[in-house]
């Protein structure tokens, strides 16, 4: 055995002990609480999305003439196609939910504060990438929602002052939805956005590793108790259990609530009731309340505030001398988002 190790060691001069020490990060004891393992959940789901997405791409054909039929083939004829498509669809939904929950946990525990401001902004980039992956993903099916969702999104882009028309052309590959649009969405969904997400995720995890996880203490805790434990094997086991539980949950959802197909895209007929996926309900409702440019600019402002929140929060704390001001703003923001989402979910128009 040592001969084999020596042989490999000569040719690949990497210190196993060094790698083990580097990966074996001591993590704060509060990570024993499941709520604090939410950061690993979207990362695990992203791996599920990559694996199932690569498999689906073997059959998917990104052109208006073939896209719908190829998704039908995957769903109805390919072996276990219904299951893999179900995993991919539910994986996307759970990934977005997990990212939002992780972000809320970071927000309400103030874990974005100095020196972790940049990692919050990197996290916001990850959220944006995830939402764009969701949007480009359901655009690929080429059902009515795909077509009209893309059309509406392109026209929303068009309302942005100055850069809007260019954004629309880049998104659609023309003035309107055309033969080249689907291949754009496919490359964005299957190559550009995942690679971008992987790179940004590496920066996110790298900064977590460099800065360490924020230590927290809870009421009733023994002050003399152990403060940290090793990432491997204990936290790694926690992540393994979460992974298996997620696979069970995804399998159950893919089987009990399978991914279906809506009517094929028809550029002549806009359906009477059309809604995006649930994670865009807030933005969709907002668009109904305000005119195009106003809605776009106000949403842009909200996203800007969310991106730079750590610095805005620091200014507010200095100004009002009240450390928990972000909690109350967060509560109002979360309730507003939930309210708008429920509102959009409960009404037809």
């Amino acid at each position, binding site marked *: 055995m040592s001969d084999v190790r020596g042989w490999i060691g000569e040719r690949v001069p990497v210190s196993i002990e060094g790698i083990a020490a580097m990966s074996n990060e001591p993590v704060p004891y509060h990570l*024993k609480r499941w709520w604090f393992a939410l950061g690993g959940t979207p990362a695990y789901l992203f791996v599920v999305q990559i*694996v199932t997405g690569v*498999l689906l791409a*073997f059959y998917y054909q990104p052109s208006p*003439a*073939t896209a719908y*039929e*190829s998704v039908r*083939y995957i769903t109805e*004829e*390919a*072996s*276990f*196609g219904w*299951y*893999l498509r179900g995993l991919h669809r539910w994986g996307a939904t759970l990934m977005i939910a997990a990212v939002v929950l992780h972000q809320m946990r970071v927000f309400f525990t103030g874990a974005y504060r100095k020196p972790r401001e940049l990692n919050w902004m990197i996290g916001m980039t990850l959220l944006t990438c995830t939402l764009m992956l969701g949007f480009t993903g359901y655009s690929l099916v080429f059902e009515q929602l795909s077509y009209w969702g893309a059309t509406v999104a392109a026209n929303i882009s068009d309302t942005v002052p100055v850069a809007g028309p260019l954004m629309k052309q880049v998104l659609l590959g023309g003035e309107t939805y055309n033969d080249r649009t689907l291949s754009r969405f496919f490359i964005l969904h299957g190559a550009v956005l995942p690679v971008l997400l992987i790179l940004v995720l590496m920066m996110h995890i790298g900064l977590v590793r460099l800065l360490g996880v924020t230590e927290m203490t809870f009421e009733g805790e023994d002050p003399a108790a152990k403060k940290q*434990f090793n990432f491997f094997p*204990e936290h790694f*086991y*926690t992540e*393994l*259990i979460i992974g*298996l539980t997620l*696979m069970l949950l995804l399998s159950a959802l893919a089987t009990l609530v399978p991914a279906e197909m809506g009517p094929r895209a028809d550029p002549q007929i806009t359906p009477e009731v059309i809604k995006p996926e649930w994670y865009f309900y807030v933005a969709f409702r907002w668009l109904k309340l305000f005119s195009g440019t106003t809605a776009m600019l106000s949403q842009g402002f909200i996203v800007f505030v969310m991106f730079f929140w750590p610095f805005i929060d620091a200014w507010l704390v200095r100004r009002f001398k009240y450390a928990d001001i972000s909690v109350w703003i967060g509560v109002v923001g979360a309730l507003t988002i939930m309210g708008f989402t429920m509102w959009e979910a409960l009404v037809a128009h």
Partner: protein
Amino acid sequence: MSHQALPPPLDDGAPEAPLTRRTALWLTSRLAMLAGLVGGYGLFAWVGGRFMLPAHTGRLHQLFVTLVSDVPDGGTLLYRTPDGRTVNVTRRGQTGAATDFIALSSTCPHLGCQVRWEGQNDRYFCPCHNGTFNTEGIATGGPPGDAGQALPRYGLVVDKGLLYIMVPAEQLSMGDVAGVVEVTSPVGPGHDPCLTCVQARTPGPGSWGRPA
């Protein structure tokens, strides 16, 4: 999950430790976890591998070929399936039923070359490796004959004077346009790609043909 220190692993050199209840539980839980991981992800890997293989639903679709009256006895037409495979459809009777016709793939089962009909020898011939097939598509010589192969045969249906071919459902998803590609004079049961030679051949009984 237990946060207490785990029992030390058994060392080959150390005296054998008695198997306590705690050690047994520790070992069992880890074995169960390992079995779950291997079983769960192993099953998923199998599902992914199975997905990669082409699906064979066994379902057949009925596609229109031509009017029965358009094919005289002895005549042959070359039909292209939706996925681009070519089939020789030959008429061998005059009852007007599906049994009058035989539909044989023009692809040699040996290595996929296109076979051609040799009227003078009353056989299909594959130019790649000298494979030969009789009028029923059964291999009679060459590598396919040695392997006991035959030209794949397609089902045919006649309904209200229309001739239909039965093709596997998975061939439909390719999106190519199916239909009759070429027709030849009834020089034999098979299609001969040498269409320009048709004039030079001895016409058989019930000569027919479509205008070019």
